[in-house]
């Protein structure tokens, strides 16, 4: 397998460069938006220990997004802060399911967030992340392989945490089971794009940047099914289109506006 060691080398081949940046945007934007939705639970999690745990996971995950944006900066895509704050929704490559609001209401007003949605989403996301990281450590782009290895050493704690919630809620009351199951069915109908690699999926595989979509999906299903007793029988769908192609919902706009509020108030501020 050819190994690309530096950003300069990656830039030599246009096709390689495009596929590589596409993948990095997907990885960065997924971690970025899931961290934002996670951070909205601060002070609202079911109990104080969970508040500590979820904020720690969220902070660490935002750090992972930062690492990918940094790789993009090295490749000449722009500064990290600009990549994170200024890109409009249509340029974002996160899966649309990840941008979904945590529930009704708003953080500053009366947040009526849904813990079942969060547990299901975090569990599905962390499982996907593990599968992708295990594939990315073998990437032909060495800086990505190094970063994936670093993240892979920290992420098992995150996955274990959400697996525990899934297991305990599934073994809990009828109400808990019903809520979890209905959010799972919703995820099945909306979340197919979390497993997609977008319009350049074939180039990604061709350049050996990451494993192919079929492999990733099968691995993911296998791991998810080890924890979910009765996965939905319906096929995976993507009700809101594919975020990998820049298709997004108004929920993403809300997230980006909130997240960039301070940044937009003075873009030249030095922190």
């Amino acid at each position: 397998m050819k190994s690309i060691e530096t950003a300069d080398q990656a830039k030599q081949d246009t096709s390689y460069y495009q596929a590589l940046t596409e993948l990095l945007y997907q990885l960065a934007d997924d971690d970025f938006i899931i961290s934002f939705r996670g951070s909205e639970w601060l002070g609202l999690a079911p109990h104080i220990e969970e508040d500590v745990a979820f904020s720690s996971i969220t902070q660490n995950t935002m750090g992972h997004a930062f690492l990918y944006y940094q790789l993009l900066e090295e490749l000449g895509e722009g500064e990290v802060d600009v990549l994170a704050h200024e890109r409009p929704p249509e340029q974002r490559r996160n899966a649309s399911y990840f941008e979904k609001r945590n529930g009704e209401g708003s953080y500053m007003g009366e947040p009526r967030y849904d813990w079942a949605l969060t547990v299901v989403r975090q569990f599905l996301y962390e499982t996907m992340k593990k599968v992708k990281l295990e594939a990315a450590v073998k990437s032909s782009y060495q800086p990505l392989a190094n970063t994936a290895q670093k993240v892979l050493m920290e992420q098992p704690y995150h996955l274990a945490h959400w697996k525990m919630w899934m297991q305990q809620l599934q073994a809990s009351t009828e109400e808990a089971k019903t809520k979890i199951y209905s959010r799972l069915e919703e995820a099945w109908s909306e979340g197919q794009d979390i497993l997609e690699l977008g319009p350049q999926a074939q180039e990604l595989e061709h350049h050996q940047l990451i494993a192919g979509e079929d492999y990733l999906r099968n691995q993911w299903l296998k791991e998810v099914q080890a924890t979910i007793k009765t996965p939905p029988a319906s096929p995976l769908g993507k009700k809101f289109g594919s975020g990998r192609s820049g298709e997004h919902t108004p929920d993403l706009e809300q997230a980006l506006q909130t997240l960039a509020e301070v940044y937009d108030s003075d873009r030249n501020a030095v922190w």
Partner: protein
Amino acid sequence: MNDEQKHQKVHAILKTVDDPELPSVSVADLGMVHEVVVDQNKVSITMVPTFAGCPALDFIEKNVKHAVENMNWVEGCQVDFSFQEKWSTDAITDEGKEQLKKHGVSPPPENYRPGEEWSVDCPYCGSSFTSMDNVFGPTACRSILYCGSCKNPFEAMKPVVDYSVV
């Protein structure tokens, strides 16, 4: 002063730069220093971050740079963080482990293997009658535990090991 002596001076200085979130524990004893290169009067240091998303990295970079440049023979110091090398809790020195305990933080278990349950002794009384309250703590690299013997809550460094599939 020859290169060898300069190297020693830099390493000695790095032993005095503490982690901003773990006062009294130096970045050298945490195993964060990967490489020191001395070229005449210029120093470049490659460091390995502990956890990604550690908000202390910018401070660490600044503090290391400042400490090294404070030596009168140094004209400039460049600090870089690298992911080529993997940090793991095994990189913490014995001195680092002692200092962690003084700070009320237990060092991570040795020879830990991923997936295994882990236990640590209380940094205050040494008892092994401890329980984990929360694997996640005030920083990404720490967990919250409770000592059943002396009834103190305490923290422990999370074990991070070289988990790899390649």
